[in-house]
């Protein structure tokens, strides 16, 4: 008597021919590309939020240096005017060392230490978050009270930056979608090839009373395994690359690069990609098999 206990390999002997052997490799590449695109989109999400938090409801007032007028009283006048305007939460003069620190990357430390450079006065203005304040009206009042005062409103360029960020995010999402469609197309191709190679066996199973779902489940199990194997390899490679980029970015410094910062749930979303690939492969294989089998008796 036989000592074997295990359920046999699939009735359809999937994986025995070359029709689907490329699938794990192709899905590994797809998950790798999708992970990079998704990581980019998610990192941008964090950056956009950071930009918004940093400069929303903020204005900078710049008072040009005039040799005939001392800076301190002009700053004091400007702050007094600002405090009188409804919607202004605070107006704080920026200390000279902070202004020098801002200029140092462009002018160099030596030029600043030598002194004699006419530096503008800067005032950090914070607005109430729900303020409907007109920046143009505020600028006009300041100009009238303190000649040479200019208001730097970051909102217009921030809006353009956010728009660009959102566009890049959409591009990332589009790439993930395209990669998903390409992966589904490959699963369809491999499944059809597998069905064509097993037409006789499938007919035999049908004649023994197999329902289409019985045959589809064997394909589903097979492609799920392939997708998981490929997906894990792809996400592993992508995580290595992302970790490398993050390390390099941290060495370059945060001032010049929009930092690639991923929150914990971003990493979690990336780790879900192999499962998503397996889910996509299962659904695609099932629909393909059931669609093809409907044409058989």
């Amino acid at each position: 008597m036989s000592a074997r206990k295990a359920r046999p390999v699939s009735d359809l002997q999937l994986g025995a021919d070359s029709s689907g052997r490329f699938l794990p490799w192709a899905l590994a590449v797809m998950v790798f590309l999708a992970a990079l695109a998704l990581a980019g989109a998610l990192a941008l999400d964090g950056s956009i939020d950071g930009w918004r938090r940093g400069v929303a409801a903020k204005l900078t007032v710049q008072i040009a240096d005039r040799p005939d007028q001392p800076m301190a009283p002009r700053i004091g006048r400007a702050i007094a005017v600002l405090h009188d305007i409804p919607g202004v939460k605070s107006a704080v003069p920026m200390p000279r060392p902070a202004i020098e620190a801002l200029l140092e990357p462009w002018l160099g430390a030596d030029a600043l230490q030598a002194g004699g450079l006419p530096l503008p006065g800067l005032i950090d203005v914070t607005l109430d978050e729900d303020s409907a304040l007109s920046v143009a009206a505020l600028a006009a009042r300041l100009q009238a009270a303190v000649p040479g005062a200019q208001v730097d409103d970051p909102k217009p360029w921030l809006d353009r930056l956010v728009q660009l960020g959102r566009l890049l995010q959409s591009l990332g999402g589009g790439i993930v979608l395209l990669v998903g469609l390409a992966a589904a197309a490959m699963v369809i191709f491999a499944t059809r090839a597998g069905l064509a190679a097993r037409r006789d066996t499938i007919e035999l199973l049908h004649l023994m009373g197999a329902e289409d779902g019985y045959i589809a489940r064997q394909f589903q199990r097979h492609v799920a395994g392939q997708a998981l194997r490929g997906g894990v390899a792809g996400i592993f490679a992508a995580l290595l690359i992302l970790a490398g980029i993050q390390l390099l970015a941290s060495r370059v410094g945060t001032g010049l690069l929009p930092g690639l910062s991923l929150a914990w749930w971003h990493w979690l979303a990336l780790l879900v990609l192999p499962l998503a690939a397996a889910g996509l492969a299962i659904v695609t294989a099932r629909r393909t098999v059931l669609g093809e089998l409907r044409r058989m008796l």
Partner: protein
Amino acid sequence: MVRFQNVGMRYGPGPEVLRDVSFELAPGSFHFLAGPSGAGKTSLLKLLYLAHRPSRGLISMFGQDVSTASRSALPMLRRRIGVVFQDFRLLDHLTALDNVALPLRIAGADEKRTRDHVIELLTWVGLGDRLDARPATLSGGEKQRVAIARAVIARPSLLLADEPTGNVDPEMAGRLMYLFVELNKLGTAIVLATHDTHLLQDFRFPVMRLRGGQLAIDRNGTGGAAA
């Protein structure tokens, strides 16, 4: 149980290979199917095991009109039919045990009971020591016995066998016929296509005789003109 009324069948746009075929199979009946090569035996069997639909006429099986039955209704009907194919159609990558177990697994039977049942049947047909053998290592007669075991394992209501004793020695042929007769006594209707005139003479079951696509039934079961 099975009723054919004026059934015609053609492959694609070709000529009719079966014409005006009418007959009934009662539960527990036993019929031989005889006729020269090309007479339409295989086509008639294909209609019976639901691999083809008729071009015309009415086929009723187990109380259902299969000419118009939906695809989703066919699996349950097919599970009541066992088929022994002339070319066996065993799955080469599966062992004898797994080939025979297929109909039960497809029907979702319990795995432990399936194994026990399959081992018992394969032992009965003399293949108890060949459970793990794959078809490539089996002789023609052994393959035939595996094919027969697979066809009868689920105790079908209708068994269709195409030359089931063609590749075995007379002793094993007798043993297999005994299996068919025992199964028939338990209520399975059997249609057995054969060229073997001795078989027809020995068992004297009614003979469905096909010639040129037309069917005549010899209810007295005489053997002489089988082929």
